[in-house]
């Protein structure tokens, strides 16, 4: 059995946390080959080679892969698919864009958001915003899947595994990149952070979100948000935690002014310790919080920031 894993490479850099957790999920199935594709990907490939459990790294460097467009990335994976039984990627937005395309081109079903690997054909995945866990057994010859990385442990150091350059695949020529709007931040990345502080509708405005950010910075935490806060323009879309946003499982998750809709809980309920601060003592978030503080966030959160 052999596994091809699409490494998460953004602007030439490997997301080691997500890629490593996906390796940890899959290494029991066979030799794991990590594919790093990008306009520059050599450094990412060398980083991937040091993840424990990686047998080999393939590097496809070409401007075609610089902006993670689905069509060329899927064509590259399909071209390599013949040698592998499992073709997988960490369940990032890029992979969710690319992997179903790969699966359909191979005439197999995609198995998204795998949260446990039972055997080579059988996997668990959450459905209904995490309100149910389904075990599915694939009858397809190849398994194309994405890995819910929050469900797996980080991979250790290993290798280095051999790194091999490969030729670019075809250019389907269907789409073109125009621009990225990416906020620069010194904070930890949301999905791999050990601590996350999130704000919801209760925060009230974009300006008042500074209260959430101040606490996050004091804790060295990433900042998250509920859908309501993002929809209201208080926080950017890439901060959204939940069913259709990011899934996080930090050591500490602080939910502030978040009522706790099931769609939000789907993205954070596997956190180790959950703190909820909300003025409404009936808020559903308190039903899953380890420590709940009923009170006005505008006084309690600055006080907490000061006392830490």
């Amino acid at each position, binding site marked *: 059995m052999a596994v091809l894993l699409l490494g998460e490479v953004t602007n030439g850099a490997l997301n080691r946390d997500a890629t490593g957790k996906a390796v940890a999920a899959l290494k029991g199935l066979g030799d794991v080959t990590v594919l790093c594709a990008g306009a520059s990907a050599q450094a990412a490939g060398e980083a991937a080679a040091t993840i424990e459990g990686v047998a080999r790294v393939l590097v496809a460097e070409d401007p075609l892969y610089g902006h993670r467009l689905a069509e060329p990335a899927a064509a590259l994976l399909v071209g390599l698919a013949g040698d592998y039984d499992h073709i997988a990627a960490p369940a990032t937005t890029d992979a969710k864009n690319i992997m179903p395309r790969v699966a359909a*081109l191979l005439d197999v079903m995609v198995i998204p958001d795998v949260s446990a690997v039972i055997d080579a054909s059988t996997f668990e995945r*959450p459905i209904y915003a995490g309100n149910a866990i*389904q075990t599915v057994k694939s009858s397809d010859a190849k398994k194309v899947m994405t890995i819910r990385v929050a469900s797996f442990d980080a991979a250790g150091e290993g290798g280095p595994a051999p790194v091999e350059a490969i030729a670019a695949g075809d250019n389907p020529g269907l789409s073109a990149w125009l621009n990225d709007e990416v906020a620069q931040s010194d904070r930890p990345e949301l999905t791999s952070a050990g601590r996350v502080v999130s704000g919801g509708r209760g925060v009230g405005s974009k300006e008042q979100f500074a209260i959430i950010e101040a606490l996050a910075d004091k804790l060295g935490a990433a900042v998250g948000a509920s859908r309501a806060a993002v929809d209201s323009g208080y926080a950017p879309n890439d901060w959204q935690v939940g069913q259709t946003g990011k899934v996080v499982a930090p050591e500490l998750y602080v939910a502030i002014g978040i009522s706790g809709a099931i769609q939000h809980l789907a993205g954070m309920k596997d956190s180790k310790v959950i703190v909820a601060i909300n003025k409404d003592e009936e808020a559903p978030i308190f039903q899953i919080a380890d420590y709940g*503080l009923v009170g006005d966030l505008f006084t309690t959160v600055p006080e907490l920031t000061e006392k830490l």
Partner: protein
Amino acid sequence: MKVLVPVKRVIDYNVKARVKADGSGVDLANVKMSMNPFDEIAVEEAIRLKEKGAASEVVAVSIGVKQAAETLRTALAMGADRAILVVAADDLHTDIEPLAVAKILKAVVEAEQPGLVIAGKQAIDNDMNATGQMLAALLGWSQAAFASKLEIDGDAARVTREVDGGLQTIEVKLPAIVTADLRLNEPRYASLPNIMKAKKKPLDEKTAADYGVDVTPRLEIMSTREPEGRSAGIKVGSVDELVGKLKEAGVI
């Protein structure tokens, strides 16, 4: 340009899913069902394109049980012009996999020749997030998934996408598949007169067999269970007490 919008009948957004006692799946008997929220956004976007003159006709299509006709009537009441129901299952609890749905949609696209397909990015029941991308693959079309902004410009579409790092804007050649994310628009409510009018709009009924598509699942559902529960902890009375508890827990 004709716009095709696939819509799915799913458990209502506000209903908490309950796993059946025998572990065979989520109980959908006597549960309120609605249009998948992401598909409502897709329908709304298609209607707005028509209102702006960028689209000539909006065709809604649903694949599933015959009751999905109600979901199509909702799309028609919002403003779609006509609808196609493809009956592919008898049992309310049968979920047609995205690959089979994409194969049926491919056949519908070949018959209808739309210039654009707008789909919801994800159904809130199986949370697969796959049908649009799979349809693009089968057709050999471009795809713009997780759209928060869509502009048609001649034979191309400029699409801003919600991605992990923020936003990405790409240009795709038409025909293309766009999948709608949450912030593409706010769907309208159908007015009562429009609900009445929708009853007279054309709704064609087909079957999966009409399109020669085998809908046998590739993923056998072995079991469905409740997730591990998480029980409520304690309420603390003050910030000082909270800080103390967090120190005790070793997380700060």
